[in-house]
């Protein structure tokens, strides 16, 4: 459950931003969780509410956006989109895909009061 420790890092970031950017409460938070990152969105959601309790983000709505996974096919040299690390190339069927994007883990946006 490393998602819990990531929630704790998110909480620390939000507490710091509350002081820096002068807000009292986070009402909504938008995260980018890439499909090829090491994070299971549902596990993060599960930990989020518990970890945010007592913080500036207690009760905040959580919106998780999954950016597309990008890869480069070493066989046919095309840029393709993938959803897992062992997808085959949709153009040529080769398995030698180099992942180039889709592993982002970001706090994109906050709604605060």
């Amino acid at each position: 459950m490393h998602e819990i420790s990531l929630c704790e890092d998110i909480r620390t970031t939000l507490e710091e931003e509350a002081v820096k950017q002068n807000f009292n409460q986070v009402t909504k938070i938008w995260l980018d969780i890439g499909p090829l990152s090491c994070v299971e969105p549902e596990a993060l959601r599960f930990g989020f509410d518990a970890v945010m309790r007592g913080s500036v983000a207690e009760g905040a709505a959580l919106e998780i956006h999954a950016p597309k996974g990008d890869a480069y096919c070493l066989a046919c040299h095309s840029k393709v989109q993938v959803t897992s690390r062992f997808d085959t190339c949709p153009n040529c069927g080769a398995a030698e895909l180099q992942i180039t994007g889709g592993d982002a883990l970001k706090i994109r946006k906050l709604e605060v009061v």
Partner: protein
Amino acid sequence: MCGTCGCGEGETRIEGKAHHAHSHEPREIELHRDIMAKNDAYADANRRLFAEKDILALNLVSSPGSGKTSLLVKTIEAMSGPVAVIEGDQQTSNDATRIRATGAPAVQINTGKGCHLDAHMVGHGLEDLDPDPGATVFIENVGNLVCPAGFDLGEASKVVVFSITEGEDKPLKYPDMFAAADLALINKIDLLPYLDFDMDLAIENARRVNPKLDILPVSATSGEGMENWLTWIATARAKTGLSAAAE
């Protein structure tokens, strides 16, 4: 609740505009902050320390029971030059004790309920370990093929160890770890005659997840393949821009 004026708790509303300076209207803030930023900053600090001290750091990851510690003991015995080890486990200092028996310094980190080492823990471990300049530092991560994949510790490479008793499809079952690693050591090959293990299929599965992965079959017990692993370590030093290990 508004920390300045107290409004917002339950049904409380306080009239008047002048009682404090900020608005109660919701506003949006574009943050674009990497969630791993805190860990990555500690990892960068570790990486700087390794570079300053001419240290090659390797992060050994695997499931529990793959034979990481036995492999490490045999590796240390075969290596020339200084070696130091950070051991990560939920509980006990058994592994650090086994490493110290080889004469190499070791620090045990117990993660308690934690499922992985993070760069902050490793930074503190390094303060206690104080490895010699020019050393090879092995970080033996918590036995877990999931969580440690996402945490940069400042190492030059992750090395994933998987033993042939775990089955050929391990790389497909735990792709994140095999994708994050630069080298896979397929351990316990002395057991090949007794098991129905397809080495070619295992290698094909690993490459499917990570086409650039180096793969070396080894046995800590018989010593088979250990030379290749030691050569890989020496090459990793050169690739990282470090001096050759002292004899």
